[in-house]
C-alpha cells in the first residue's frame, strides 16, 4: 500500500551522509586497531541463584583462547552504585542472561566455540518473573529518591466527580515489554596502555561513559578516552553504559595492551541492554454534557527489576495534558527477577499517552462528540497542576491543521460500517506531547582557524539524528558565516564535556551551548579575530526555567484497514502535525518525526517481547520472532509542523523532536482500528487474532 508522500523538505543534507552510505563512516566495532582479541560472553541460564563452579579447562584448551574470565577470577571493581556495571563482582545471579564471565580469543569463532565448552554449575533459587498486580511484588517508588520520579498526585475529589459525570470511561490498557533493537548493536573495543583506557564505544554520551567507567576502575577521568564518532541508533538503550562495557574493559586488563572487541548478538540485546517495561494502566475519565473533563484518573503499574530499579512513570502523561478540576495520578512498580528496564524512545509518554489518548477516544464515542473537538474543549489555559503559563502550546493548531489536511471533516463517526472488498476501513486521531528538556553542563570550544573558517568542538554524540548537521548550522548562523566555513567536531571525550543524547534535548542543550560559546567568542575576540583565537564556554541557567510549563505537542491521524476474514491490520496512511519550537533543519527533522511515527506503527501492530515466566527470559529473542514494521507495513507517512516561536525554552528556541513522533501513534492506530471494526482492543500490539470474528 503506497500513497502520495510529501517530498522531503529543504535543509542542508546530513554532513556525514556520504560517508555513511559509502561505508566509510566508522562505527564502534569497525575502528581499525592493532592485533585485536575477541570476547564472547558467558550468560546465566537460570533466573536466580548462584554460580557454584565454573569448569574452564576444555575452553582453555581451544586453539587461540587467551583468557576465560569468571566471577571467581575477575579483579575487584570500585562499587559506584550501578549494579549493571558491577560485572563478575559476585557469584549471585539476579536475572536470566546475566553476564557471568567471558572468553577472549584470537577469533570470534574460537571465543564462541570455547564459551560453549565452559561448564557452569548453579545453585538454583526460586525466581519470580511474572508481571502482575500483586501486593507481594508491587511497591510505590520513593519519589524523594530521584528527580526522575514524580510523586502521586491528588487534586480535588475524583470519585465524587466521576459519580456525577454525564459520561464516564473506566478502562484498563496494557502495553508489553519492548526492545529497542537499533540497527547497530551495542559494541565496544577496549584497550589499556600506559596512558589509561581507550574505548571505541557505541553510546549516547561518551562523556557519561567516561564519567562512570573511570571511577569503576579507580582511574582519573583524564585517563579514559571514549570515542564514538558515529552511532547507528540507540533509542535510549545506549543512554547508560551497560555491563558489556565493564566486562570488555575488565577483560582488556589481562591482554597486555591488546584491544578486546565485543559486539552484542541480537539475542544478547534482549537480555543485556535494557527494554521498555510492560505496563498495566487504568484510566478513568468523567466529562460533563459538553465533553469537558471533570475527573481524570490514571494509575499505572510497571515492571522493574529487583536487581536495579527503573521507573517508567507512564501515568504522569495525564498530569498536564488536559484541563480537569479533579485529578489523580499514581505510578507503581512491580519488582521481579528480570533484567533492568531502561529508557526507550519517549519513556513514559509513549505508553502513558497510548492509554490516555485511547481513553479520550472512548470518551468521544460515548459522548457522541468528535474526537478532535473533544480535545479542543479540554484545552487548558495554564498548566493544570503547576498553574504555570505554557511557554507555548499549539496543540489546537496541530489538531485543526491536521484535521484539515487529513480530510477528517468528512468522517462518518459510526464504527464498523465502511468496507472496501475484504477490508474494514476506519480513521483515528490522538494527541502527542513531550516535555521540552534542557540538560545543563555542556561546553563548546569555538576557534577561528584562519580566513573566516571556524572549528567548533563539543563532545556530544550524533546517534543518527542529524545533530552534527544541526549544530553546524546553528554555529554558522551565530558566527554569521556560511555552513561550509564551520568544521564541527563531536563524538569523543577529546572534545569539551557535553550532556547525554537523550530526552530529545540534544539540539536544545548543545545548540544553546554552541550559540553561547560563539557569543562568548565574539565578546572575547570580536568580529575580526586573529587566527587561533579560541574560547570555551557553555550556556548558563535558563532564567525562564521553573516559570513556564514547556512541552512540544502534536496531532496524529491514521487510516487503518482490518481484514474482515483474517483480522490482519494495515496502516496505509498517517499524518502527523507537530508544534515543537524552532525546526533547525527541515530535512533531518522530517526524518526524525517520520522515524518516530514509523516506530509508533511498529509499537501499535508488532512489537512484543514475550516473556516466559517459567524461565524468566524473552522467548522471541531475535528479529525473526520479535517483529518490527518492515517497509511493506508502512504506507504513506506525512509529516508537517506549525511555525512556532518560543522565546522561553532556551536560547535557540528548540523544543526537541526525537521522541514526540512515537507519542500518540499507537493510540491513533488503535482508535482507527476501533472505528474500522467496532472492536476496542486495549492490549498492544494489535495482532490479527484480536480482531477475528
Amino acid at each position: 500500500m503506497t500513497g502520495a508522500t510529501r517530498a522531503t523538505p529543504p535543509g542542508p543534507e546530513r554532513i556525514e551522509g556520504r560517508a555513511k552510505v559509502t561505508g566509510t563512516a566508522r562505527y564502534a566495532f569497525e575502528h581499525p586497531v592493532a592485533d585485536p582479541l575477541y570476547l564472547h560472553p558467558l550468560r546465566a541460564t537460570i533466573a536466580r541463584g548462584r554460580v557454584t563452579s565454573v569448569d574452564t579447562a576444555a575452553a582453555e584448551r581451544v586453539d587461540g583462547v587467551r583468557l576465560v574470565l569468571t566471577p571467581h577470577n575477575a579483579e575487584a571493581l570500585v562499587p559506584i552504585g550501578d549494579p549493571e556495571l558491577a560485572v563478575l563482582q559476585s557469584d549471585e545471579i539476579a536475572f536470566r542472561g546475566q553476564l557471568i564471565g567471558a572468553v577472549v580469543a584470537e577469533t570470534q569463532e574460537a571465543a564462541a566455540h570455547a564459551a560453549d565448552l565452559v561448564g557452569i554449575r548453579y545453585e538454583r533459587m526460586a525466581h519470580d518473573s511474572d508481571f502482575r498486580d500483586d501486593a507481594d511484588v508491587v511497591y510505590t517508588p520513593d519519589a524523594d529518591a530521584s528527580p526522575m520520579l514524580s510523586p502521586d498526585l491528588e487534586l480535588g475529589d475524583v470519585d465524587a466527580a466521576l459519580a456525577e459525570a454525564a459520561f464516564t470511561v473506566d478502562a484498563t490498557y496494557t502495553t508489553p515489554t519492548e526492545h529497542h533493537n537499533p540497527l547497530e548493536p551495542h559494541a565496544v573495543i577496549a584497550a589499556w596502555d600506559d596512558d589509561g583506557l581507550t574505548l571505541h564505544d557505541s553510546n549516547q554520551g561518551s562523556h557519561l561513559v567516561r564519567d562512570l567507567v573511570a571511577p569503576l576502575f579507580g582511574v582519573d577521568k583524564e585517563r579514559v578516552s571514549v570515542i564514538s564518532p558515529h552511532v547507528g541508533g540507540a533509542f535510549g538503550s545506549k543512554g547508560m553504559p551497560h555491563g558489556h562495557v565493564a566486562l570488555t574493559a575488565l577483560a582488556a586488563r589481562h591482554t597486555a595492551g591488546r584491544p578486546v572487541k565485543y559486539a552484542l548478538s541480537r539475542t544478547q540485546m534482549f537480555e543485556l541492554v535494557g527494554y521498555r517495561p510492560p505496563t498495566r494502566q487504568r484510566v478513568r475519565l468523567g466529562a460533563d454534557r459538553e465533553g469537558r473533563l471533570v475527573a481524570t484518573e490514571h494509575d499505572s503499574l510497571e515492571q522493574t527489576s529487583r536487581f536495579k530499579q527503573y521507573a517508567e512513570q507512564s501515568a504522569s502523561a495525564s498530569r498536564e495534558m488536559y484541563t480537569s478540576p479533579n485529578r489523580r495520578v499514581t505510578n507503581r512498580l512491580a519488582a521481579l527477577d528480570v533484567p533492568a528496564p531502561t529508557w526507550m524512545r519517549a519513556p513514559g509518554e509513549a505508553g502513558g499517552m497510548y492509554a490516555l489518548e485511547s481513553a479520550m477516544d472512548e470518551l468521544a464515542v460515548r459522548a457522541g462528540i468528535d474526537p478532535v473537538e473533544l480535545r479542543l474543549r479540554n484545552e487548558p489555559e495554564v498548566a493544570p497542576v503547576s498553574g504555570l503559563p505554557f511557554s507555548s502550546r499549539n496543540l489546537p493548531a496541530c489538531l485543526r491543521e491536521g484535521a484539515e489536511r487529513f480530510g477528517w471533516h468528512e468522517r462518518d463517526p459510526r464504527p464498523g460500517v465502511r468496507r472496501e472488498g475484504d477490508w474494514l476501513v476506519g480513521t483515528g486521531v490522538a494527541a502527542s506531547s513531550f516535555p521540552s528538556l534542557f540538560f545543563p553542563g555542556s561546553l563548546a570550544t569555538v576557534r577561528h582557524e584562519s580566513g573566516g573558517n571556524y572549528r567548533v568542538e563539543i563532545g556530544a554524540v550524533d546517534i543518527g539524528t542529524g545533530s552534527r548537521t544541526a549544530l553546524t548550522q546553528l554555529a554558522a548562523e551565530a558566527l554569521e558565516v556560511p555552513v561550509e566555513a564551520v568544521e564541527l567536531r563531536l563524538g569523543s571525550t577529546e572534545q569539551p564535556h557535553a550532556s547525554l543524547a537523550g530526552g530529545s534535548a540534544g539540539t536544545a542543550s548543545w545548540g544553546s551551548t554552541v550559540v553561547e560559546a560563539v557569543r562568548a567568542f565574539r565578546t572575547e575576540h570580536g568580529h575580526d579575530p586573529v587566527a587561533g583565537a579560541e574560547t570555551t564556554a557553555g550556556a548558563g541557567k535558563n532564567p525562564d526555567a521553573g516559570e513556564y510549563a514547556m512541552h512540544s505537542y502534536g496531532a496524529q491521524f491514521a487510516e487503518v484497514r482490518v481484514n474482515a476474514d483474517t483480522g490482519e491490520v494495515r496502516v496505509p496512511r498517517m499524518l502527523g502535525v507537530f508544534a515543537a519550537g524552532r525546526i533547525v533543519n527541515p530535512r533531518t527533522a522530517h526524518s526524525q518525526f517520520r522515524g518516530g511515527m514509523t516506530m509508533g506503527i511498529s509499537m501499535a501492530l508488532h512489537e512484543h517481547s514475550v516473556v516466559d515466566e517459567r524461565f524468566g527470559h524473552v522467548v522471541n529473542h531475535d528479529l525473526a520472532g520479535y517483529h518490527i514494521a518492515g517497509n511493506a507495513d508502512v504506507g504513506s507517512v506525512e509529516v508537517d509542523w506549525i511555525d512556532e516561536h518560543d522565546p522561553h525554552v532556551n536560547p535557540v528556541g528548540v523544543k526537541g523532536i526525537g521522541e514526540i513522533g512515537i507519542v500518540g501513534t499507537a493510540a491513533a492506530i488503535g482508535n482507527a482500528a476501533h472505528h474500522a471494526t467496532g472492536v476496542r482492543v486495549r492490549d498492544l500490539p494489535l495482532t490479527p487474532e484480536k480482531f477475528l470474528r
Partner: protein
Amino acid sequence: MKPFDYQRATDADSAISVVSRDPEAHYIGGGTNLVDHMKLGITEPGKLVDITRLPYDRVESLPDGRVRIGATVRNSDLAAEPVIRQRYPVLAQALLSGASGQLRNLATTGGNLLQRTRCSYFQDVTTPCNKREPGSGCSALEGWNRHHAVLGASERCVATHPSDMAVALAALDAAVLVEGPDGQRTVPVTELHRLPGDEPERDTVLRHGELVTAVELPPLPFASRSRYRKVRDRASFAFALVSVAAVVELAEGTITDVRIALGGIAHKPWRATEAERVLRGAPATEETFLAAADAELAGAETLRDNEFKVPMTRNTLASVLRELTRQEGS
C-alpha cells in the same frame, strides 16, 4: 559454533557415500536454515558437503506433462519460472510469500522442503525441547505456543512446519525424488514430513545420507486456477500464522475437483482431505466452504495461545475458495 570440515560435492554418488558413512556429516544447500542452526548450537555437524554444484539446478517440462524441479533450483528462480507461474500459480505465490528476497535468492528447493521448525524453544539450546533433545520435555506445550500446531500434534511436540513452498507442493500432489546409498526412491510430498508422535526429533521419512535430487509436479491442468494465501503478523518477512493453498476445478457452479493444503497449523504441510471430500461435487457456496473448513478442523486441539488459528483457518479457507470460484464465474 563447533569447527567443521567442508567439502564441495562434484558428483552425487560420492556425496551420498561420504554423508551416509559419517553420522556427523550434513548436506548443505543454500544454508539459510542450517547455518543459523550451527550458530545457535542446535546442529553441530562435523562435516558439510556442499551440493549446490551438482547438476540439479534446472526446471524441466517432461514429455508426459510433468514438471521436474531440480533440488538446487533457488526459490527466486523457481518463482520466476514461466511454466510455474502459468501452470502452478499457487506454487509461485507460495514461494514469493516466503522469507525475503535475499533469502529466496539463496534458498534451494530441497533445502526449503527440509527446513526445520521455528519453534522458539527448539531454537534455544537453553530450554528443553524433545525435538532437539529427545526426552527433555516440550517447553512450548505450556509455554508460548501462539505459533504452534492445532492439528496432528502430540504430547511430545506441538511445533509447526514453517515452509510455504511445501504447502503448495502438498496441494499439487508433488513427488520428491530421493537418492540414497541403496538407490533411488520417490516419496509423495504429503508423506515426506512426519507428524511428531513419539519421535518429534524425526522431521521426515528420509534416512541419514539420503539426498533430495528433484521435486516433480503432476500435469494437473486445473492447477492454473489456484491460489496461496498466507496470513501473518506483518505484511512481509514473517512466518504464516495460517496459510491456505488451494486448487479448484469448477463446472457450472459445482466443484468438480479440488486440492487443498494448510500451513502453519501442523507439524507438516497439512493436506486437507476432509475438506476436499466435502467440496468435491458440491455447489460452490459459502455454506459448502464453511462446512468443508469445519470438517477439516473438527479434530483441532488448541493450546493457551493458539485458539485463534481455528477461526482464522476457517475464515481464510472460505475466503480463498470464494475468490477462486468467483474468478471462475466472472
